[in-house]
């Protein structure tokens, strides 16, 4: 009995990590039909933000350092949300209605982010700042010209070329004369560790097994995020608009809802949630450039099983995938059947899948079987807008 409860708890805690990671993805996918392959990297960004906040709080001493995790949550949310906003405005808004292309573009962004975290140093930051200054400054000046529309394409090409040349030249110059402090990578390719504050270490002993506080914290955080998102979507004006656009984009636009703003806002919200998820994930283990990759496929499975545009579906899908994954992966299922001798082949079968990587094989098989019955997920959209 206690083994089953322990399994359930561990499953829920895995599921809540999946859920908090998939929450932002589900909202974005539901509204815009956009698959954001950079979602995992936004999580990574949140995790690294937590690391930075921790290092800022370290010199402040005892009472403050204990609370850094509470400060890092909103900071991670804001950093990821701002990056998501830039991503939406800069790339994704040009690709609406072409979901497969969006998928590839976001993969490109995720590659860039991964390498960026590895090799970011002051030199790179200065170069990027100079590039932005030259490019956007030049654009702002040229835009005042009366024949801007006519020279637009040429101007952008030339500006792009000139400003990248300037920034690269400056980079080389600094590299030659600059000190080590400028060229030393901030994080390097190695994983960094976020130390949980003392009140999150250890665990709560109950019924003969231990519930780690960090896991409980993540479960609580997931519940708070869910309630917050639920409140935002169902009780606020912008939430109403988001739901309207999810249901019928063109009709909403006709009724005067600024759909472009809704898109940008939703994407920023989804990215921000990814940042919070990254903050949560950083409590579970060390954080590296490839942290996001470990979650991305699983979270997509949650979205696929849960169905589009329904938070409740995402919750059920996340938790059940987490629980099934744990029950198979830890061998609990095999353990249940060992008592009966006649079920020996079944035990062998489950033992074969009783590692965390083989459990994924089994879960995928279950998902494919499930999709044969309900191809559009647990709670499919109904009505005329639903695709044929």
């Amino acid at each position, binding site marked *: 009995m206690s083994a089953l409860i322990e399994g359930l708890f561990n499953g829920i805690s895995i599921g809540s990590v999946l859920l908090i990671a998939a929450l932002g993805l589900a909202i974005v996918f539901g509204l815009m039909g956009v698959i954001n392959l950079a979602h995992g990297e936004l999580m990574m960004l949140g995790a690294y933000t937590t690391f930075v906040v921790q290092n800022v709080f370290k010199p402040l001493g005892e009472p403050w350092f204990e609370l850094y995790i509470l400060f890092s949550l909103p900071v991670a949310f804001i950093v990821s949300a701002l990056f998501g906003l830039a991503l939406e405005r800069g790339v994704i808004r040009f690709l609406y209605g072409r979901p497969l292309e969006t*998928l590839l573009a976001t993969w490109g962004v995720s590659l860039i982010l991964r390498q960026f975290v590895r090799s970011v140093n002051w030199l790179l930051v200065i170069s990027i700042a100079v590039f932005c200054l030259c490019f956007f400054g030049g654009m702002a000046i040229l835009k005042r010209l009366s024949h801007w529309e006519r020279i637009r394409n040429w101007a952008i090409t030339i500006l792009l070329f000139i400003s990248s040349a300037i920034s690269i030249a400056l980079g080389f110059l600094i590299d030659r004369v600059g000190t080590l402090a400028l060229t030393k990578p901030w994080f390097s390719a190695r994983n960094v560790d976020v130390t949980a504050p003392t009140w999150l270490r250890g665990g709560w002993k109950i019924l003969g097994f231990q519930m780690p506080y960090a896991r409980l914290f993540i479960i609580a955080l997931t519940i708070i995020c869910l309630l917050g998102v639920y409140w935002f979507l169902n009780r606020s004006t912008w939430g109403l608009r988001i739901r309207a656009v999810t249901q019928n984009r063109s009709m909403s636009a006709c009724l005067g809802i600024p759909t472009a703003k809704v898109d940008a806002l939703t994407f920023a919200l989804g990215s921000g949630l990814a940042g919070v998820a990254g903050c949560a994930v950083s409590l579970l283990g060390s954080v590296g450039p490839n942290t996001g990759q470990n979650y991305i496929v699983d979270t997509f499975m949650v979205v696929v099983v849960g169905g589009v545009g329904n938070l409740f579906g995402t919750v059920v899908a996340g938790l059940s995938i987490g629980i099934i994954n744990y029950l198979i992966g830890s061998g609990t299922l095999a353990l249940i059947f060992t008592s009966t001798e006649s079920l020996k082949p079944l035990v062998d079968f489950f033992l074969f899948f009783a590692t965390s990587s083989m459990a994924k094989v089994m879960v995928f098989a279950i998902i494919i079987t499930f999709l044969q019955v309900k191809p559009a997920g647990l709670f499919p959209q109904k009505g005329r807008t639903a695709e044929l």
Partner: protein
Amino acid sequence: MSSELNTGVYKQKQRRQKRLIEAGIIIAIAFILAVILPAVLPAFRLRLFGRFLALAIVALGIDLIWGYTGLLSLGHGIFFALGGYAIAMHLKLQIPEGQLPEFFTLYGVDKLPWFWQPFYSFPFTLIALVVIPGVVAGLLGYLVFRNRIKGVYFSILTQAALLVFFNFFNGQQKLINGTNGLKTDTEKIFDLLVSSSAVQRTFYILTVICLILIYLLCRWLTSGRFGRLLIAIRDDETRVRFSGYDTTGFKVLVFAISGAIAGIAGALYTVQTGIITPTIMQVAFSIEMVIWVAVGGRGTLIGAIIGTLLVRLAQTFLSERFPQVWLFFQGALFLTVVTVLPNGIVGWFRDYAWIKARSLFGLKQQLITYPQIEEDPEIQRERDQLTRK
């Protein structure tokens, strides 16, 4: 009446001429690849180039399903790896009767797993490296397409399948040597060492031949009625279905063909790399395959080949000199191809550069209307008749 016959003959003549030109170009390229390059390049570079050509074969398969049918598969690594493992297993079994490949003893396995048995035979292996990936692709496709799951859902499911296969191959030390993979370089084929230069050169020539044959196969598939159906499925699947076609069948078929092509490519790639490991099924590698096609121009078979070669050459060049820059460059490549060059290099050349170049030399602009109304002899004739009245 006679003029009608004339137009038919004229059209046929034109078509035959075009075919001849194309065949000439293909023979010339084949000659360069198979005869001149081996003479010019050092053995190491030739081996590398042979690998690129093997990857170009996968790109053809991806172009078939993505460029023509509009299905973005992010899981072609599966089929690629299956082909590779098939040939590697055969090579591993080139040992005296009754002995086991050496890695089995490390894990205390004393009996050959049942699925290794048939790979003793060379003909079976040759069939298996085409059929197994094809069947797996067909099965996966059937399970997905049957429920009319399409678009990004399909892409995600293929990606998940890829991860699942990766986990499976990675975790099974006792069956297929897990993470370490199967090394083919030290094995023998027809009593010759696989890594010896004569064998490698043969593999290179074989790759060139396969590439051309598969190109011709794809060309044949996409030019006829079948190809037009694929394009119709890409552009408006619902309408094709309402016209009475079974789109599921076509999609499963083309996905299976594409998987089989990837299997062939995987086998050729493996013997020229010298090893196959589960890393070939990483998520990143399969997405990279897609970008080769996108760079070259999807929906154009030649674009897939050009794109693969260009990107792989750039990758070799950049990661040899500036290892840090490559990922940035690759990311930027994804972004620019998608936003600025949606039709790839070949598409840009066809839609823009070719027309610009013609107008530079003062040639008449080609009409882009389809079918080319002004040039069509039948319409000219009708117009003549009308004006004569």
